[in-house]
């Protein structure tokens, strides 16, 4: 069985022109949701509007994701405080719901210094968040594109790895564009 979920940011909400129907995502069989909370120390302006709906949508899991800026220590504590402020229900989640938090580790044009976070920075961020939140190890994910970090670095990643491989990136219903459980995209290149 394959489980599917979208991840959303203010780009999706703004493209739509109105609040995202999160219950509708659940009705379309999405089992979970990740939603952009922040980048560096900036908060996504649509996080509360979108993610607050996740509390009652009936997901098996959901949580924020944070775009980690390079060379800026202390982001884990900042993120944890924002979660307590903007989604405090994650600290006492509904029965049958598991909170997650994903570190989004890549490079964006606005970064200063202009580089991707190092593996050490990624680990520090997740380690610190884990210590602050008390959440389980597998509740903390690392979104880490292989094209950016390479297999050698990713092989040293100590947290669950969310790979990013779009293939031809076709448009369409999420199940129909899925490459399959046996796709080579699941594998880290040797």
């Amino acid at each position, binding site marked *: 069985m394959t489980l599917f979920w979208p991840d959303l940011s203010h780009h999706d909400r703004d493209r739509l022109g109105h609040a995202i129907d999160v219950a509708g995502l659940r009705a379309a069989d999405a*089992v979970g949701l990740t939603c952009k909370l922040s980048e560096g120390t900036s908060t996504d302006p649509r996080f509360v509007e979108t993610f607050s709906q996740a509390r009652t949508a009936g997901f098996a899991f959901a949580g924020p994701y944070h775009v980690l800026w390079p060379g800026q220590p202390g982001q884990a504590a900042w993120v944890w405080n924002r979660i307590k402020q903007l989604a405090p229900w994650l600290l006492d989640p509904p029965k049958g719901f598991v909170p997650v938090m994903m570190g989004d580790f890549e490079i964006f044009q606005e970064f200063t210094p202009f580089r991707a976070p190092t593996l050490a920075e990624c680990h520090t961020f997740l380690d610190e968040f884990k210590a602050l939140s008390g959440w389980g190890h597998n509740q903390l*994910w690392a979104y880490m594109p292989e094209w950016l970090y390479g297999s050698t670095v990713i092989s040293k990643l100590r947290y669950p790895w969310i790979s990013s491989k779009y293939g031809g990136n076709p448009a369409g219903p999420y199940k129909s*564009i899925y490459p399959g459980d046996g796709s080579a995209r699941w594998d880290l290149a040797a």
Partner: protein
Amino acid sequence: MTREADGLQYGSRATYGAALSGCDTNAARFNTIADMQAWLTGGDTDVALTSDEIAAIASAVWTRSIKNDTTGVAQTAGDRLIGAQSQNDLDAAVAAVLAQARANGTDLSALAGTVADAATHDEIAAVLAAIASQPTGAVDVAALAIALAAELGPDLAQQVADELHNRLQS
């Protein structure tokens, strides 16, 4: 080294029913939702350290300096280990020597008494024999006393005199 992804983001133009289109979409491979939830909440101890991380930890432990409470000197783990091994050996050796020394001391004390007694007895016997070999009247008692004291020391001389007296009286 190969690794399988725990989750895969496989597109950025996905449609989720009527709710949304053109969004990022992700997948995870589990038999059931409950299995995924069990994996989410049960993963605190299953991540193995890499070989590089183990080597770095071992190096950090070995070179870490910690103050020795007894000496007040900061030592690395390597130095402390060597020192402890040597100190243990030294302590054991000293204890063995002390035990033997105590045993030897007891023996020596006993032996000293025996030797002293033997020496004293032999010396006195020799003096008496010498006196007995002298013709009667030929013993200059005063001179003998002076000679005894000079030769034997006051203690032995006294013992000789006492023994002479006893024999003459008997």
